């Protein structure tokens, strides 16, 4: 965090100054480790074993927050008899279909009093099939000894972490976990976060000040681009994109949405208001508010399958907007080969990034795999406007929208992306004008009349924000999603952002200085939903509505006023008394003043997830797609439902123990540097930053340097079955060798910012990574894979692919390698 979110890290240091204990878990010793009380180097890819070990410690030593757990989690609920755990099936859960490699989740359901009835509960949590007891059995083998064997973390150090966390949780204290893509970029990434969620729920650290699981996101509005998603499977506000099989029409869509429970009960209002925002008067009750105008998805259309479709020639046009896949996406070569097979490519950026210039100076031109004259792709480069040259909002990693104001006009033909898409839409509509083809109606009937200003005809960002916020039946901006209706009388571009323009005021532009406010600072920017700063904060009070402790008071029930109040906006219906239960009626779901987790159908925090995840109701430690070690816990080596994309250009390494596995003996992990940003488009062209971190390097321990003959400041070549890269060698004790399963494992650290363009150059670490993905969210596993490292620079020209091919042959790699269950 000190490296990648340095200014946010000041608050960690403030906490430390007040007595907090700071534990840093990372394969590398970084600037965070330097100021932490404890640094725990662990093997990349082993975090579920590590966190699972803490879960076991908390359960075995009865250190969980019992009152919180009984009242606010599903620990007392009883799971059906048909459920079988990884302990029973040696690494699989019940419902696994070996042929399709998917889970049928039916057996993960609760036991109910009758069909459709409420789940059976045992508040003593003694029932052998209640969630708490299932957890005990599931994690029983995640002992300190096992953690040491899998993660390479000595027992004594591990127990110190366990005790620190347990001691720092409870009514008087809270513990927070902060993570970044070190947890997500795995074939089990979602289950990493789940393990942390289980731990934090057991300790009572969710919904309380100083608690939580904090995603430290790496782009100015990566949260916003998830909320208002440029993502294939979502519509604004986490409404799913319609699926051709499951959402035949508006009613089916709404029914599936409501089944998610909680505030999803309002799915029809949210979606109809969105459709009204997009298609205006054309959207009527008679035509299901133009639901049919939404294209349907039929599977995984995320970026890696899309790149494969480009290579195959099916996907022909590509917009790349403020992103640099030729450096920043896994298997960078495949990214470029995909672009080389397009009809047309549009790149919008500040400078000539690698994704814009690969056709004339990319790595494949040098190796001869591509010849510029043969590449038929038309390439457009549009210069982009900077944040100082446009109005707009970013949503930061705390869900807070902050408005930035335009200071100057962009230079030359540089324009904002708002300008580009508004005018592109206008030009496309001009071209389709008069068409009677049904396929053109969604474009022609789209509401697309934003006011423009200034010398360039810049559309008004504030008008767009007002559309996102929504307009009520009275014609005024809505104050929140509660005012949205399902009859077409309201509009709203993103229901969770409803309220950001309440009262016709740009709430995201509020800037009351922090020094003039209390610690919550509610008058700076605006957080969704409804300016709540801590989600599920009902859990900061006990079942009677009183703070668990004065030290940790956040919101509470005010008996005199008959409403919830406190420092933060209560994340619950403000008039729903702590023990009040409103039964389901008139189509509205039951609501309880005792349930903090308002997005869940039962209002509880889920220790066990009976639905929602495709790879299991509980996290289990699986080895990464590529690992030097067999799974010490189960016969099942890897996540059985992980996504392994097949491509002749992108191969995988053999399993440990197979012939050829030893060809790639080292663990690689990738990371960021303080002085650079993602794939370098906003940092390798800045002289200050270039000077601070001038060259691609590879971090290795002195022991690995000795083993492989690597010299400090010399060159090394790192090789995988995908590609080979060269880097300057940094021999450092920051990369500590670890003892795992009785032998030493070396880890190699690679920053991923560099590429061939800009002031500072180097090979891209993503040349090395393969296309094994988490099955829930389709994120690639770049935080743990295997490689070889040898001294010296990589070969040039055709000798480079020949080197990679020689490694494939030595390791016996073919089309089937790595795809085994």
């Amino acid at each position, binding site marked *: 965090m000190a490296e990648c979110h340095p200014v946010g890290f000041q608050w960690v240091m403030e906490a430390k100054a007040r007595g907090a204990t700071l534990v840093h878990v990372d394969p590398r010793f970084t600037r965070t480790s330097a100021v932490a009380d404890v640094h725990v180097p662990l093997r990349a890819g082993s975090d579920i074993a590590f966190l699972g070990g803490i879960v076991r410690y908390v359960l075995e030593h009865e250190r969980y927050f019992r009152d919180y757990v009984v009242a606010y989690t599903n620990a007392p609920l009883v799971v059906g008899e048909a459920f079988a755990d990884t302990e029973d099936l040696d690494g699989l859960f019940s419902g696994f279909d070996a042929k399709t490699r998917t889970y049928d989740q039916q057996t993960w359901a609760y036991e109910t009093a009758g069909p459709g009835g409420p789940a059976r509960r045992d508040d003593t949590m003694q029932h052998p099939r209640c969630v708490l007891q299932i957890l005990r059995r599931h994690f029983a083998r995640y002992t300190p000894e096992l953690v040491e064997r899998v993660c390479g973390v000595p027992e004594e150090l591990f127990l110190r972490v366990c005790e620190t966390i347990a001691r720092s949780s409870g009514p008087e204290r809270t513990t927070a976990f902060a993570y970044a893509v070190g947890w997500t970029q795995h074939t089990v990434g979602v289950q990493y976060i789940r393990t942390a969620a289980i731990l934090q729920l057991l300790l009572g650290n969710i919904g309380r000040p100083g608690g939580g699981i904090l995603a430290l996101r790496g782009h100015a509005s990566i949260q916003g*681009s998830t909320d208002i998603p440029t993502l294939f499977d979502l519509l604004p506000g986490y409404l799913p994109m319609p699926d051709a099989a499951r959402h035949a029409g508006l009613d089916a869509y709404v029914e599936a949405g409501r089944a998610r429970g909680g505030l999803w009960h309002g799915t029809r209002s949210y979606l109809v208001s969105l459709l009204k925002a997009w298609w205006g008067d054309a959207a009527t009750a008679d035509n299901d508010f133009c639901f049919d105008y939404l294209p349907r998805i039929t599977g995984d259309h995320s970026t890696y399958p899309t790149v494969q479709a480009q290579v195959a020639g099916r996907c022909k046009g590509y917009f790349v907007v403020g992103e640099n896949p030729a450096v920043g996406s896994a298997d960078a070569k495949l990214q470029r080969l995909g672009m080389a097979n397009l009809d047309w490519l549009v790149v919008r950026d500040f400078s000539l990034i690698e994704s814009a210039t690969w056709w004339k100076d990319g790595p494949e031109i040098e190796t001869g795999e591509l010849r510029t004259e043969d590449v038929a792709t038309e390439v457009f480069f549009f210069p982009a406007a900077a944040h100082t040259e446009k109005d707009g909002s970013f949503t930061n990693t705390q869900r807070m929208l902050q408005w930035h104001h335009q200071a100057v006009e962009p230079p030359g033909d540089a324009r904002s992306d708002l300008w580009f898409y508004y005018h592109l839409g206008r030009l496309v509509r001009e071209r389709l004008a008069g068409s009677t083809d049904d396929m053109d109606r969604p474009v022609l009937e789209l509401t697309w009349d934003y006011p423009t200003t200034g010398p360039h005809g810049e559309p008004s960002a504030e008008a767009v924000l007002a559309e996102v916020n929504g307009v009520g039946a009275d014609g005024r901006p809505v104050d929140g999603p509660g005012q949205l209706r399902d009859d077409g009388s309201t509009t709203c571009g993103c229901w969770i952002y409803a309220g950001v323009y309440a009262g016709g005021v740009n709430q995201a532009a509020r800037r009351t200085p922090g020094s003039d406010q209390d610690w919550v600072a509610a008058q700076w920017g605006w957080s969704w939903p409804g300016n709540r700063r801590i989600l599920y904060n009902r859990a900061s009070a006990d079942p009677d509505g009183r703070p668990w402790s004065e030290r940790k008071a956040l919101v509470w029930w005010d008996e005199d006023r008959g409403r919830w109040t406190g420092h933060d906006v209560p994340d619950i219906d403000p008039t729903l008394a702590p023990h009040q239960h409103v039964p389901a009626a008139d189509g509205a779901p039951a609501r309880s003043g005792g349930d903090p987790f308002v997005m869940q159908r039962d209002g509880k925090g889920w220790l066990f997830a009976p639905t929602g995840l495709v790879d299991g109701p509980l996290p289990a430690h699986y080895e990464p797609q590529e690992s030097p070690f067999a799974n010490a816990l189960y016969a099942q080596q890897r996540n059985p439902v992980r996504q392994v994309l097949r491509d002749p250009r992108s191969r995988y390494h053999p399993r440990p123990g197979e012939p050829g596995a030893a060809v790639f003996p080292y663990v690689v992990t990738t990371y960021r540097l303080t002085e650079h940003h993602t794939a370098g488009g906003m940092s390798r062209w800045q002289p200050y930053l270039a000077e601070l971190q001038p060259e691609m390097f590879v971090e290795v321990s002195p022991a690995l340097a000795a083993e492989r003959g690597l010299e400090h400041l010399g060159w090394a070549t790192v090789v995988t079955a995908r590609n080979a890269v060269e880097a300057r060698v940094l021999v450092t004790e920051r990369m500590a060798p670890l003892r795992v399963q009785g032998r030493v494992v070396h880890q190699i650290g690679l920053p991923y910012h560099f590429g061939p363009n800009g002031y500072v150059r180097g090979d891209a670490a993503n040349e090395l990574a393969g296309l094994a993905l988490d099955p829930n969210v389709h994120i690639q596993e770049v935080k743990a894979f295997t490689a070889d490292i040898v001294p010296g620079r990589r070969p040039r020209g055709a000798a480079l692919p020949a080197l990679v091919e020689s490694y494939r042959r030595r390791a016996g790699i073919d089309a089937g390698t790595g795809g085994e269950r």
Partner: protein
Amino acid sequence: MARRTPLGWPVLRQAAGPDRTGRGAAARAEGREMPRARTATADAVVKSVCPYCAVGCGQDVYVQDGRVVQIEGDPGSPVSRGRLCPKGAASLQLTTGPARRSAVLYRAPHATSWRTLDLDTAMAMVADRVVRTRRETWSWQEEGRRVRRTMGIASLGGATLDNEENYLMKKLYTALGAVQIENQARI
């Protein structure tokens, strides 16, 4: 810069001038009348937010004569309290540096170099290609189910953009029937 002379030595100034004790004007270094800070002469200070990571540090953008002359941390921000990291502190170079392009470039099929295009021409060309590719790759049905889409047009990016920009992108792409819309959030 003015040529230095021995007459400027502090000891001579102390001996010859009115400040005999050497605790005032005589002790002042030459050049004390520094050029004023760019922030002091700016016409306007515009409130902004750092464009790099997702911490969301507040920025004050100083503008003079229609140009950004300095970017500093906003001390009022309860997020950042006026601080910026090395990247945030380099925002002035990011926004005003010479590496920024200001003209549209076009590479024709099989061409070996760029040529410049004027913006309107380029926009019209892209609009033509969107219309053409969409029509060529349009699909009403997939395995017997209605899909109403094109799998011929994809998009990558959004995490570095504004919410309002992401909104127009998703809205336009969805109306066009393009579904392969992605950004850094899952990369």
